[in-house]
């Protein structure tokens, strides 16, 4: 990264907290409401573990799509639309090359249980779920909606996809491949991921409690977020002052196990170190950390231990108590949350935390607190042992 700063000129977000950034920003500080919402799983399956669903209506694309739009892409569109409006970029602007980098998990697989059951029963099922899947690649969907002709990439790095998409988008700009990147992530609730996490015995049948002594696991969520990333040349030419900057991105593998994080937090350590070094920020300059904080026993333990070692005394919190774990969208949603907190100059309590875990060397932030400084970290730890960390700085202007 070489210390180059990539501007953030627009934000968009839709998740359980709200349909847009201002609503999410307000709700983030209001404490958590218990959620018992109906779910939209395809075959009216009722999960036992709470899920954080998006209740708001979602926009339709401007062009007609023969096989329809996936829910993942509708979520993506809502977030991207808001980010572009916020950034004052409503269509492909002349000479600027605009790329799209979106993280997802559900959006990249054919998950239709209805189609699959019809296939198994030899009932000649309707092919539209397959056709819809083939025509709904998230990054391509956004690129075609807005006629963006720059590079197009759907990142499928499991739970770190959102953070990775931001880091990669920033790398593209720093390398001069394009001027602007719509970067973020989107994922809808799905029975398939629900069954998967439940089978791994990492879900909680009650509301999740990140970093809490009595935590039992995660709750799934859905949503999308997008950040408009720009080169200095581009935002100066457009006279659009940045809201903030991506100043560093670190990513490293544990190379340990397919599902369990490395107990010594080796990969996370490396990612944090690289992110800080390349952003030229010392740990003392970091105001807070938006942790991955899924509320699983393993994840929270590894994170708390590693953060305590790498960034002692720096407050950390998980926002998944407000949003659930939105998989490919999580890192992007959390980057938006991080920007919101930097702009407000304060961080909320880590939702779901109430009892300290004596096995953890540090506890998350327990009440709304003013923060000092203009820089924060947001991190994501993925299945397969990938650890991603992004350093975000608030604009002083």
């Amino acid at each position, binding site marked *: 990264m*070489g210390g180059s700063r990539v501007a953030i000129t627009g934000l968009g977000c839709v998740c359980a907290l709200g349909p847009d950034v201002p609503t999410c920003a307000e709700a983030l500080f209001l404490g958590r409401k218990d959620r018992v919402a109906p779910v939209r799983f395809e075959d009216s399956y009722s999960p036992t573990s709470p899920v954080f669903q998006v209740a708001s209506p979602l926009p339709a694309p401007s062009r007609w799509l023969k096989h329809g739009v996936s829910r993942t892409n509708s979520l993506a569109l809502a977030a991207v639309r808001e980010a572009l409006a916020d950034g004052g970029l409503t269509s492909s602007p002349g000479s600027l090359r605009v790329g799209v980098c979106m993280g997802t998990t559900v959006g990249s697989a054919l998950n239709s249980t209805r189609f699959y059951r019809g296939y198994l029963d030899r009932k000649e099922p309707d*092919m539209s779920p397959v056709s819809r899947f083939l025509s709904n690649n998230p990054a391509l969907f956004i690129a075609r909606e807005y006629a963006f002709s720059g590079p*197009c990439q759907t990142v499928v*790095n499991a739970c770190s996809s959102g953070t990775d998409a931001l880091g990669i988008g920033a790398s593209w700009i720093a390398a001069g491949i394009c001027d602007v990147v719509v970067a973020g992530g989107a994922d809808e609730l799905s029975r398939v991921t629900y069954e998967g996490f*439940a089978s791994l015995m990492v879900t909680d049948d009650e509301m999740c409690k990140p970093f809490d002594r009595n935590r039992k696991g995660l709750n799934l969520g859905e949503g999308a977020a997008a950040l408009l990333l720009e080169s200095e040349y581009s935002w100066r030419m457009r006279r659009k002052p940045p809201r903030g900057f991506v100043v560093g991105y670190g990513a490293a593998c544990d190379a340990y196990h*397919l*599902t369990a994080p490395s107990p010594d937090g080796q990969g996370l350590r490396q990612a944090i170190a690289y992110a800080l070094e390349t952003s030229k920020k010392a740990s003392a300059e970091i105001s807070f950390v938006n942790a991955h904080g899924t509320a699983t026993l393993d994840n929270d333990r590894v994170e708390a231990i590693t953060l305590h070692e790498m960034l002692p005394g720096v407050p950390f919190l998980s926002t998944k108590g407000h949003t659930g774990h939105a998989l490919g969208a999580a890192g992007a949603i959390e980057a938006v949350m991080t920007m919101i907190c930097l702009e407000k100059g304060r961080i909320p309590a880590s939702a779901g935390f109430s009892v300290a875990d004596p096995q953890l060397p540090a506890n998350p932030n327990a009440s709304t607190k003013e923060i000092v400084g203009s820089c924060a970290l947001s991190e994501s730890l993925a299945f397969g*042992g990938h650890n991603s960390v992004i350093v975000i700085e608030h604009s002083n202007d």
Partner: protein
Amino acid sequence: MTDMRMVIKGIGVVGAFGSGIDALATAIVDGIRPPLSTAEVITKEGTGRLSVYRARTEGLEEFFAKRELRRIDHYAKMALLAASLALKDAKVSGQRQGTTGIIVATGYGPHRTTFGFLDTFVKEGNNFASPTLFASSVHNAAAAYAAILFGERGPSLTVSQLEMSVSSALLTAWCWLAEGRVDSVLFGAVDEYSDVLGYCWKRYFGVQETSQAEMRPLDFERQSAIPGEGSVFFLLRRNENQGRYGCIRGVDMGFADCGRIDLPETDLLFLGADGMRETGRLYPPHLSGKNNFLCHAPTYGSLPIGPAFDIAIAAHEIGDGAYLETNAEALPEKTIGCLKIGRQGEFSLVMLARE
């Protein structure tokens, strides 16, 4: 076109033609179409047969003990075999110098395992979702296994961009090398066949008489695609003298319906046409006036990561100093372009050259 210089230090390939870059080169030089497997596809009409280019992974036993591979599915095995062959080809073993990033491009991901996972709770009477199958059904499983088995702790990326997966991922590989994030990229692509894919093939394209199955991708208006599976891996570096295979010198991406694709002058142009009528017909408007194009899909089949095979063939040709197809003496400044057009009109062009 994004200019770059990524030196190709090693190549590993797995497909119906066998495994290893020499096996692929031999198939091209000798004009051999690999043997086709026959898959059964059950539709309402009954049991039909579909020709498929299938890949085998027994070669993996040279690199890993069976116990290490016990949970690893066919998709990840193809990737691991191609990656191992690439590292062997690059004469890299044991401690590697510097940091290595792992990048995997896939069109459809490990769908056979995805459906295997669905089997465990969707089938009548089944309510026993398998966590092992779920963990392996996540698209980045191959990259994760590569990191674990090769002991690589650098950054990892898996890209799913349909026919543009390879080219899109190459852009990020370049960025990582250019910014010094990594010293090498173990870059690969993998796609597999499954019964569900075969079923969808039948539903979309109808019956295909296996005895007459033959890919004719240069008959652009004809549906002659045969599904394939396989994997290709490269070891890429930046600041290095020319390796055996030359370099990737540029990647261009865009939309073919925004005007004619700007095809630079190259000695050869490899077309990613693979017998799919929907995309085949998109090539001719961009080819008028050109007669130096070839199509290699009949050697490896129709699959979204096809461009990776074309890049491997191009790299081998540049390295070998001979046109594989004609055995003619190559010009020293030989350049090869690999063009792929996707279903929604998106295109990619990857340029290779000796230096």
